[in-house]
Structures are given as structure tokens and as C-alpha cells.
């Protein structure tokens, strides 16, 4: 059994890697015109093989390990897939499959303008390196794969390289990513020094030997280092710049897969290799996560560029995930493994969901951009009549990301927020306050997310087209619609079947917290018998008295997610069930529809023009814009945005009469303003001060050399 499963996994990986190789050769051979088709075909098959590998390990639970080859002086390159890797591998496949199909149509826009061969080659290399990052079992192969991944994601973002804006954003992305990598390398080196080996297993074994300072150093370096990839505050600034310039399908990969790698790194190091043993790091993670979420959504709510908005929202979602992880770390360090498990499940669930709906939304934004040629929501509008399928799937994505049941975002956000409420189990008042504030920040985030995506959908797809271009377009080709459909369907499925996802996640999390929580979280109330020793007796009998066991015969399976069932005496229950909600919703909707049809069957429908206040002609310019919709948020959070007004006044020669007054706003992102601006201006002022040394006189320079020499000698004398 184990052997067979191992064979499946290893063969799967070999097939995947060879498909990537074949793809690269094919890309070089095929003409530019045929390349998108070849890419989508081979990459889809490769994604399926990745899905199989991930799914096999997730379900069977056998970790697979294999040694690749030994490098002289450095050590052995090993690949190891445990459940945590498998989960991320699975998500990677889940996102790559639809995105690869989508690319076939989308890349046509670059035909005759760019070399599509290079695009395909970068794409395969990125795909392969991402999978290798996730399955590498030692520092060396991890870092090699990580660097390859960073560079090829940069190259793909920088694909439209002749635009200055693109290059600038690409460089920023690369620079921040490399800075993060350096921190990660340092963290790994500290661990490797203690264990004397580069193998992850050895690091894990020797984790106990690290001192307090080293532990903190590893935590800080790895958290902020991987935080760059995950787009967490304060290193989130590259995200909203890289996304709008990247091709649509690359954006989907960037948000749906590459950001996950940051979370993977944080989880791998701080929950697996060197488990956080104190509350402090957990609180830092929690705070950073909450701030990222709030800052991300505030900028998303006021952004009018579709892709920039989605990028800011990615920061928000990564923040929510990180906050969940932080809560998990705190619970784990406080000796509450069950709650820690629930928090990790919430975080990982949100991670899956974010990958799904964010790639869906990016594909939607890409389709709109492909068809209309603009992503400015002020210029869009009325697309639902022209692109009904894109609109439908974008709506599904928006509902998911706005955390409305029965879509998937609701489940994970519910779990995360409920986890925050569980802080009552912690004793320290200070930690409780941090939890309360983070919970409040996350709740505000959730509310603003609804605003943001009401705006995103309504301003792009409803109402009147606010630019001439909108009228000329049509629906995108079918090969672009189907992948969006796949993702929308997955969003729905992950939303209505949490009771089947949670046990799988539980098995992923169990080795990290050494506790199984699936029965706590999705108890089999309908099938368990009265007096089962595993469940609180009184509680189950209460459920029985309510008639829960009746459902056994016709309910297909577990349908209820319960977060907390309290004590015997005080059985407070926080429960929800998207499965049942969905069934009830279907009945309600269907019933209402039939009722309305029956009641109004005798009536004739009279169609009249929409009431426009009686003006002669309602022009698109007169309708509500995205800017107008989000202005309340802009006004309320003025202190955060801190805009500076640019006034441009034209006066006549005499200066008495103004012919034109133009008022503009300029916003500097709060992170840039509060963190990077002071740093750069400090460095600049130091540089200016030091520049005074360059007096231009040869004698002074000679004196510097002399002083330097003396100093070196003195220091050497003192030290030796």
C-alpha cells in the first residue's frame, strides 16, 4: 500500500518534471502562433499530474522522501513531500490548471508584439520551481528552487518590458524579493549551524538546542523574510506595483500561488522546523497580519484600477491568513493545542480559498482588460450585457472574497473570526487585548471587503458603459471562460463542503500541533450514538433529543461546522453550516421563483425606460463612478490616506483672473510614508553629511589614508 502510494507520487513528480521539459522543448520548436495552444495543453496536463501527486499524499498521508544527488562539499539534495507540502502542491495544481487553459486565449493579445516562446519557457520554469520549492527537503534545494522561482516570477511580471513603469515595478519586486531571500538564508544558516546539517529533518531534530536569542533571530528573519513574498506589511509595496503591469494570467499565478509560498515558508520554519515556543512571536505574527489586512483592504476599497485593487486585496487576504497563523502560534505556545489546530485550519482554509477566488478574479480582470483594453473602473460599466459569462463568474469570485455564504470565503473567515473570539481561553490580559484588537481589525476588514467588491462588480459590470470602448466589445473566447467557470465552481464547492475539507486540513495540521481537532470542529452529530465516550455525553443526548439522528437517513454526511461546544454545564455553541444553508437557499430561491411565476402568470409585463430624473438623455458621464462610490471610505479614513492636494491654477497675464483651476490628489501609501520615507531620508542625510569629506584637496585625502591606517593598526593591536 505504502509502496504503491510512493510509486504514484514519485512517478507523478517525474512525469511532471518531464512534462515541463517537453514543454520547454516544444515551446522552442513551435511557432509564435501555436505557442499559446501548446503551452495550455502541456501545462494543463502537468497541472493534473501535480494535482494527483498532492491529492495522493493529502489523502493517503504517506510522506514520500527521495534523495536526488549529492553535491560535493554541500550535501545531498533531497525531496520530501509531507502533508503540508502536499497541500500547497495541490493548491498550486488547482490554480495552474485553469490559468494554463486561460493562457491559450489570453496570450493571443501578445501575438506579433512579443516573443511568446520566451513566455512559455518562463512559465514552465516558474511552474517547476514552485513545485520544487514545496517538495524540497533540505536548505540547499529549497534555496536554489526559491531563487529560480523569484527570478522567473520577476521575468514574467516584467514581460511587457518596454514600458518604463513595468521595468521599474519589476526591479522593485526583484529587489524586495532578494532582500527577503537574504533574511531567509540567514535564518536557515542559524539553524544549520546548530544542527550541522542542511537537511530539514536534521534541523527539526536539533531545534531544541537553539538558544533564546537564536530562536528569536530565526523567527524574525524568517517571518519578515518570507513576509516579503507573502506581501505582508511592511514589505507589501511591491505587490500593488507588480500586479497592474504583469500579464493577466501571470497576476493570477502571482496571487494564487507565489504569495502562498511566503506563507509556506513561514509555516514550514516556525511551525514545523523550529516550532514557536513563546507567545511573543505569535503575537507579532498576529499583529502584523491584522495590520496587513486592514491596510490592504483600505487601499483596495479606494483603488479604481481593477488589478491594483485586487493586489491590495491580496495583501488583505494574506494578512487574514497570517493573523490566523499568529493566533495558532499563540495558542500553541499557551498550551492550547486544540485551539491552535483550529486556528491553523482556519488559516490554511483561507489560503486555499484565497488562491481560488483571487485567481478567478484576476482571470476576470484579465478578460475585461483583454476585451475592453482598460482596467479603470471609472471607465468601465455595463459589461454584464456584453460579457455575461465573465460577469457571472466575476460575481461568484466577488461573493466569495466578500465572505458571503454559501461561498468559500465565508467559511474560512468565519473560522478565523471565531478563533479570535476563543482568546477567552488565554489567561494573560495583555494577550487578550491584542486578540480583541486584531479581531476588531479583521471584522472591519471583512466589512470593507464587502464594500470593495460591491464596488468592483457593480462599477465594472452594471449600469452604463462609461467609455466608448465598452460598446464595441464582445464576450471573450470560450477557452477563457471555461477556466473561470472551473474556479467559480471550486469556490462554491469549497464553500458548501467545509465538512469534507476540514478533516483533510486537520490531518495536515495534526503533526504541527500534535492534536486532532476534526471531531471537535465537524462532529458527526447525526451519526454518533447516545453515550459515545468520545463526545460530551450531555451534549450528544441534547442533540438526539432535538431529533438530530433523524437526519441520518437522508443527509449525505456531516454538514455542520462547530467551533466551540462549551462545557457540559454551559454548552455555548458557535456553529454554522454552509451545506444546509445552500440547500435551504436553493429551496427558497426556487420556491420564490415558482411562486412569483404562478402569481403573475396572468400579468403582462410592461417595459419602460429606467427613471433618469426626466433629463433629456442619460449620459454615461452622469452616472455614479467608482471614485464616487468609494469616497466615503476615503473621507472617513483620511488620516490613513493622508492625501496632499495638488493645485494647478492658470492665471491670465494680469493675475487677476483665473482661467482654470485644477485640483488633484496625491497619495503616498501609508507604509511608504511611515516606514520607507524616513529610512531613505535618513540614509540620504547621512550621505550628504559624509559627502562633505570629499573636500577635493589631495592633502585631506592623504590624511584620511593615514588615519585609516593608524586605526587599523590600533584595532589589530587591541584585538590580537
Amino acid at each position, binding site marked *: 500500500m505504502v509502496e504503491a502510494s510512493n510509486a504514484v507520487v514519485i512517478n507523478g513528480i517525474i512525469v511532471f518534471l518531464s512534462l515541463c521539459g517537453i514543454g520547454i522543448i516544444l515551446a522552442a520548436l513551435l511557432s509564435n502562433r501555436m505557442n499559446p495552444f501548446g503551452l495550455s495543453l502541456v501545462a494543463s496536463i502537468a497541472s493534473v499530474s501535480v494535482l494527483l501527486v498532492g491529492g495522493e499524499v493529502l489523502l493517503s498521508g504517506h510522506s514520500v522522501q527521495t534523495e536526488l544527488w549529492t553535491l560535493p562539499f554541500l550535501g545531498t539534495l533531497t525531496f520530501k513531500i509531507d502533508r503540508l507540502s502536499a497541500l500547497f502542491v495541490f493548491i498550486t495544481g488547482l490554480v495552474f490548471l485553469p490559468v494554463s487553459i486561460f493562457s491559450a486565449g489570453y496570450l493571443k493579445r501578445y501575438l506579433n508584439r512579443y516573443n511568446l516562446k520566451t513566455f512559455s519557457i518562463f512559465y514552465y520554469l516558474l511552474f517547476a520551481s514552485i513545485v520544487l520549492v514545496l517538495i524540497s527537503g533540505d536548505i540547499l534545494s529549497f534555496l536554489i528552487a526559491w531563487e529560480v522561482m523569484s527570478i522567473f516570477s520577476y521575468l514574467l511580471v516584467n514581460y511587457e518590458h518596454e514600458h518604463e513603469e513595468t521595468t521599474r515595478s519589476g526591479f522593485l519586486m526583484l529587489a524586495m524579493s532578494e532582500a527577503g531571500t537574504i533574511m531567509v538564508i540567514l535564518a536557515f544558516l542559524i539553524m544549520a549551524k546548530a544542527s550541522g546539517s542542511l537537511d530539514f529533518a536534521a534541523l527539526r531534530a536539533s531545534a531544541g538546542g537553539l538558544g533564546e536569542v537564536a530562536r528569536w533571530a530565526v523567527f524574525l528573519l524568517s517571518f519578515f523574510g518570507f513576509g516579503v513574498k507573502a506581501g505582508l506589511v511592511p514589505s507589501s509595496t511591491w505587490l500593488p506595483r507588480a500586479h497592474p503591469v504583469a500579464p493577466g494570467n501571470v497576476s493570477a499565478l502571482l496571487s494564487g500561488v507565489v504569495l502562498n509560498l511566503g506563507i509556506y515558508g513561514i509555516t514550514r520554519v516556525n511551525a514545523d522546523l523550529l516550532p514557536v515556543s513563546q507567545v511573543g512571536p505569535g503575537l507579532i505574527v498576529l499583529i502584523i497580519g491584522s495590520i496587513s489586512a486592514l491596510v490592504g483592504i483600505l487601499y483596495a476599497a479606494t483603488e479604481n484600477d481593477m488589478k491594483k485593487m485586487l493586489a491590495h486585496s491580496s495583501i488583505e487576504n494574506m494578512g487574514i491568513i497570517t493573523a490566523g497563523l499568529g493566533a495558532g502560534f499563540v495558542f500553541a505556545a499557551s498550551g492550547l493545542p486544540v485551539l491552535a489546530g483550529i486556528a491553523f485550519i482556519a488559516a490554511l482554509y483561507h489560503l486555499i480559498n484565497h488562491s481560488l477566488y483571487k485567481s478567478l478574479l484576476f482571470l476576470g480582470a484579465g478578460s475585461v482588460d483583454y476585451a475592453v483594453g482598460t482596467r479603470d473602473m471609472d471607465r468601465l460599466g455595463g459589461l454584464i450585457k456584453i460579457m455575461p459569462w465573465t460577469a457571472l463568474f466575476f460575481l461568484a469570485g466577488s461573493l466569495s472574497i466578500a465572505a458571503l455564504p454559501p461561498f468559500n470565503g465565508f467559511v474560512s473567515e468565519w473560522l478565523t473570526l471565531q478563533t479570535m473570539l476563543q482568546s477567552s481561553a488565554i489567561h494573560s490580559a495583555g494577550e487578550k487585548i491584542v486578540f480583541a484588537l486584531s479581531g476588531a481589525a479583521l471584522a472591519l476588514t471583512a466589512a470593507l471587503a464587502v464594500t470593495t467588491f460591491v464596488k468592483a462588480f457593480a462599477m465594472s459590470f452594471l449600469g452604463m458603459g462609461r467609455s466608448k470602448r465598452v460598446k464595441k466589445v464582445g464576450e471573450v473566447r470560450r477557452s477563457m471562460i471555461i477556466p473561470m467557470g472551473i474556479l467559480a465552481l471550486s469556490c462554491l464547492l469549497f464553500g458548501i463542503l467545509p465538512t469534507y475539507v476540514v478533516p483533510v486540513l486537520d490531518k495536515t495540521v495534526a503533526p504541527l500541533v500534535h492534536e486532532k481537532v476534526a471531531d471537535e470542529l465537524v462532529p458527526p452529530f447525526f451519526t454518533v450514538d447516545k453515550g459515545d465516550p468520545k463526545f460530551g455525553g450531555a451534549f450528544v443526548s441534547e442533540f438526539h433529543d432535538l431529533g438530530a439522528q433523524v437526519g441520518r437517513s437522508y443527509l449525505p454526511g456531516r454538514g455542520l461546522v462547530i467551533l466551540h461546544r462549551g462545557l457540559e454545564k454551559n454548552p455555548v455553541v458557535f456553529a454554522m453550516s454552509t451545506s444546509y444553508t445552500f440547500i435551504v437557499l436553493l429551496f427558497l430561491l426556487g420556491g420564490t421563483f415558482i411562486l412569483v411565476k404562478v402569481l403573475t402568470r396572468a400579468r403582462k409585463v*410592461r417595459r*419602460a*425606460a*429606467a*427613471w*433618469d*430624473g*426626466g*433629463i*433629456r438623455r442619460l449620459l454615461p458621464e452622469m452616472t455614479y463612478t467608482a471614485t464616487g462610490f468609494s469616497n466615503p471610505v476615503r473621507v472617513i479614513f483620511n488620516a490613513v490616506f493622508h492625501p496632499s492636494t495638488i493645485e494647478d491654477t492658470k492665471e491670465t497675464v494680469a493675475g487677476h483672473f483665473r482661467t482654470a483651476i485644477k485640483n488633484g490628489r496625491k497619495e503616498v501609501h501609508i507604509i511608504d510614508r511611515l516606514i520607507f520615507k524616513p529610512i531613505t531620508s535618513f540614509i540620504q542625510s547621512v550621505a550628504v553629511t559624509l559627502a562633505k569629506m570629499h573636500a577635493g584637496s589631495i592633502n585631506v585625502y592623504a590624511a584620511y589614508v593615514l588615519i585609516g591606517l593608524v586605526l587599523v593598526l590600533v584595532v589589530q593591536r587591541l584585538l590580537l
Partner: protein
Amino acid sequence: MSKWVIKGLRTGIKTTQYPRKMETASGVSPGLPTAAKGTEKEVQELVFNCPTGAIERSGNQLTVDYNYCIHCFRCKRGSQSPMGWDYGYEWAANTKDSGANRGLGSAFNRSINIRFVDGGACGACISEIEQLNKPYYNMHRLGFFATPTPREADVLLVAGPVTDHMRLPLKKAYDAMPTPKLVMAVGACALSGGIFGPSFMSDAGVSELIPVDVAVPGCPPPPLAIIHGLLLAVKRKSSALLTSSEVRG
């Protein structure tokens, strides 16, 4: 500080009792001419003096067409045989088009939403209509409400002769209203064009554009007359006549 509370309480309820009791306070209505009889000379003078041509004669009998009358008092003051004058206010009447709009059923008896359209009125009718929303006349107590959108409106209230520029908005508002609906024209201008129309830039009343169910004469009609019109629209009051009856004997 809150003297106004005490003052308000001391003042008590000042809202009119109409339609439960007729309002008897002086000055609630300017009144309308009724009819007159006179010698040939007197009759000619009266007809000649009327600025809107509201007075019709048959022999030496004079009757008034309230579609036109602007109660300017020229036929009352300074005339040898003045017209009779009625200081009532229950003037609203059904028109010949009544029923063209599939009027409101009994379900609307105590709740109608009104959309007001100013079809180029001089402002007098508007300020009288405004009074309906104020404490003294307070139409809400009768179940009448103003609404900003014709989509929710049951009654379209129009004042003014309908100028060229207001023709389209009026038509749009009318089309946007769901059936059953009802149109009420308020004031001489809305009924016949009044002293403005028909002219180079206005119609001769609302009925040139859309069918009118209830007409409220007057220039402007006092608020109580408009309330009477609304009550007539929901059939809680009976219709008056748009032409005065002749003088007997």
C-alpha cells in the same frame, strides 16, 4: 433651553380637522365666482373684463368655466352686477378623461404615494402644494405621502401649463409610473394653460400630453382644495363641477 417644547405643547394641535369637519377659519380659501345675471351692458362688461375668458354667456346668463378662472376678482369688485362668490374649497372634479388611467382601487384608500412634477408653474401652486407637507394641513394623517421617484408613485401631481422643456420629463415620469395610476392637474395653468398658455413655449394644460383624471381649479388652489382632490382620487369625497351652474330665477 427647550422652551420650544413647552411652547409646542401649549400651542396644542393646530392641524385642520378637514375632512372630518369642514374648515371654517377665515382666509383658507380665496373663493371662486359662481354665476351672475344682468343687463346686456353689464354682461358684456363682465365678459370683456375677464382676463382669461372664463366667463361664458348664454343670453343674459353668465357661467364660469373653472378650467380658466384665476379668481382675479375683476368680476366681483368694481362691477355693477357682481358675480356671486363661493368661499368654499371643495373644488376638485373628475374630468372627461377620468378612468383613462385605470384609477386606483380600494386598496389605495388610505395610502397613496405622490410624485409631483412642476410643469413650468409660476411658483404659486408649488408653494400651496408644499403646505400639504406642513403641520397645518399635514397630508400624512390621511395616508398621502410624497415620493421622489415615479417608480413608487400612485398619483402624478402636475402644476403648470407644461412648458416645452418640461414636456419630456413629464412624459417620462408618467411612463415610469406603474399601473394603476392616476394623474391630477393642479391649478388653472395645468387645466387650460391659464394665463400662460397656449403660447410659443407652452401647452394649454396637462391634458394635451397625458390623460388627466382629477382637476383642481384655482390660481393657485388653496391647500384644502388639493387635499379634496387627493381624497377624490381615492374616492373618499365626491366630485365638484368644473362649470358653475346658472343663477336661478
